[in-house]
């Protein structure tokens, strides 16, 4: 069962290469095919990975990495569909062919780098893969060639690269810690490091963990190193925003979890959980306050991503297996929900020609499909049943209470409610408040509705009845995170 891993690391790359030479239409079709294959391959890995790690050279997949592969694969597929409709709207512009070529090459490379990161065996290669995701996505943020996009891309590449510089320092200190036990020629691969975790020297592991949370946390969007995030999410083309939010942040979070696993082995739970709790609460607090007064619909969703990353971080800090399973379910549900919400918002931004929340009104008349779908996704993201987010947040809170983290659990509930108020008030007004008679009604394209529907369906499926194979995978991965089986 090793070929799906190899194919996952090859198919999007080959597709990106092909997109250089073919026309925009063919490139769109190729991207859809490549993304469908990638999603299928990620699903094919669910069963084998639930039974134990799979190796192939420098590639390695276990239950934890497959969760993140699923999130990326799903978003890759839905954004590939969405991109067809998205590019139709750009078709009139003078440099369309150059734009479309860059877009297709970029989005396939971006997906490729994010699919490779969870497949890397070892902290060093993981760092390399995540750095690649940064540089590719920075170019994609700049692709619109507006003042805003240029500013956002520069901030993003500078802040995220500096963060990854710190993460590289973390990698080096972790190598140092490991070399004390494993000899200098080991390559930071996970299994030897985890097996030796209990005997690693404390000081360097501690240093490496804090640096890793800060460094990779920059890309996760943890406060106070989140500052690039709202800009990049708001200025990137909508399909890129969806992938940034649902997948890129999650993949960086995957790196944090890997360091967490080793740190728990070496230091016990208290120190790493304390660090994560501080970052998580700060992110959740600041993001929910920013959500209250937000004027820009894409920035609203971006801050909601910071909020959800805060929830994930707090969830890990609870240290309970049920909370860990909730965190991983949350990664998947957030990918589906936020990806869909960005796509829905993208349709509205295009119809109204503004990102200003206060000028988008009467969505129900103007966009009879996209607007209600968007609203449903926002409520799903806020944790309304039967959305997957409800289930995952429920598990996280339950785990926190069971493990005696009462303050953390209460803070989580309160702040999530504040965030809900911010999100619900402004988006409900967008959809239901009257106004905007000058905007012609009608959906621009079915290609822009179908992927959003898919996202909503996935979000509800995760809440109502997650497939048994997926539940097994999450349980296994959660056990891994809590220091169980490797």
């Amino acid at each position, binding site marked *: 069962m090793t070929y799906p891993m190899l194919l996952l690391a090859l198919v999007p790359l080959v597709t990106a290469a092909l997109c250089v030479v073919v026309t925009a239409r063919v490139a769109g079709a190729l991207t859809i095919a490549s993304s469908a294959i990638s999603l299928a391959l990620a699903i094919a890995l669910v069963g084998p990975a639930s039974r134990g790690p799979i190796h192939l050279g420098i590639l390695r997949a276990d239950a934890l990495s497959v969760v993140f592969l699923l999130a990326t694969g799903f978003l890759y597929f839905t954004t590939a569909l969405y991109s067809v409709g998205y590019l139709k709207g750009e078709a009139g512009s003078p440099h369309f062919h150059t734009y479309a070529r860059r877009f297709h090459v970029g989005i396939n490379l971006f997906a490729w780098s994010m699919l490779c990161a969870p497949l890397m065996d070892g902290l060093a290669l993981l760092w390399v893969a995540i750095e690649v995701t940064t540089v590719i996505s920075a170019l994609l943020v700049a692709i619109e060639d507006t003042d805003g996009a240029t500013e956002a891309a520069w901030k993003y590449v500078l802040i995220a*690269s500096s963060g990854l510089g710190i993460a590289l320092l973390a990698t080096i200190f972790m190598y140092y810690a490991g070399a004390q036990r494993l000899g200098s020629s080991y390559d930071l691969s996970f299994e030897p490091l985890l097996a030796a975790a209990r005997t690693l020297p404390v000081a360097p592991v501690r240093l490496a963990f804090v640096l890793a949370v800060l460094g990779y946390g920059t890309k996760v969007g943890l406060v106070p190193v989140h500052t690039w995030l709202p800009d990049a999410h708001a200025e990137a083309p909508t399909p890129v925003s969806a992938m940034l939010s649902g997948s890129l942040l999650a993949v960086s979070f995957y790196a944090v979890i890997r360091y967490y696993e080793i740190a728990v082995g070496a230091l016990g739970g208290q120190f790493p959980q304390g660090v994560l709790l501080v970052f998580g609460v700060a992110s959740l607090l600041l993001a929910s306050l920013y959500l209250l007064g937000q004027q820009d619909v894409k920035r609203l969703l971006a801050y909601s991503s910071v909020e959800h990353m805060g929830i994930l971080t707090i969830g890990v800090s609870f240290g309970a297996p049920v909370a860990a399973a909730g965190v991983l379910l949350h990664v998947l549900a957030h990918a589906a929900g936020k990806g869909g919400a960005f796509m829905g918002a993208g349709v509205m931004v295009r119809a109204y020609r503004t990102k200003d929340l206060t000028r988008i009104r009467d969505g129900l008349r103007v966009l009879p499909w996209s607007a209600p779908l968007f609203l449903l996704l926002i409520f799903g993201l806020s944790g309304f049943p039967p959305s997957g987010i409800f289930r995952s947040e429920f598990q996280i809170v339950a785990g926190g209470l069971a493990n005696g983290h009462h303050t953390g659990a209460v803070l989580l509930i309160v702040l999530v409610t504040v965030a809900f108020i911010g999100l619900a008030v402004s988006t409900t007004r967008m959809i239901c408040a009257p106004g905007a008679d000058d905007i012609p009604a009608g959906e621009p394209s079915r290609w822009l509705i179908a992927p959003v529907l898919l996202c909503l369906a996935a979000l509800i499926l995760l809440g109502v009845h997650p497939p048994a194979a997926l539940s097994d995978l999450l349980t296994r991965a959660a056990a891994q995170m809590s220091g169980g089986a490797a």
Partner: protein
Amino acid sequence: MPTSPGLYAATANTIAVGVLLVEFLMLRASLFRAQVRLYAVQSLIVCVLAVVVAATHDLPELYVLAGLSLLLKVIVVPVVVLRLLRDADVEIAGSGVIGVASEVLLAIVVAGFGFFAIGHLHLSSSVLPTAALSVSVAVVLVSFVLMIARSDVVSQAIGFFSLENGVSLASLVVASGLPLILEVAFLFDLLVAVVVFGVLMRVHHGRTDTLSTAGLTKLKG
């Protein structure tokens, strides 16, 4: 009782301090060209240290690493940035948000903090004196001062590249045995990052006709 360091430790420490001093020189360099040249000099010093470690500790793969870094960080990166500067036709970096004197004072405080904080951890290395590690963390922190205090894309990019030099210095101290293939992967990544930085600097210059970042204030809230 502190013992006096041997010749090797003294040499290594001196070279490491050289990296930090060049970082400080970058803070006060006001010509873009000078800053890029200082970066090349700093990279060269790191390469020299790598060669010294390789020669004294019988770590042949460090020669390869030093050679590759020399090619990339002393030649390719500076040439790329200098070409960009020639096209942009701008000579002098705009003044930063704070004056040079306060910049340097701030950097001294930050560097001192990094130096003593790492020294406090007592990480010992078999190949280099621990002081070199403390110096490397100081370099990383001062490079942050450079990136924060300067408001032009070139200084910020050079700040990031020199941050990477600081990390390379740290990796010589505590991770000199890191398998070569990983080091090469890191360098390759740096190369990709340089290309992207270059592209974005060009895009920025193309749109705003300046290298200054003072106008990048549209996105907030």
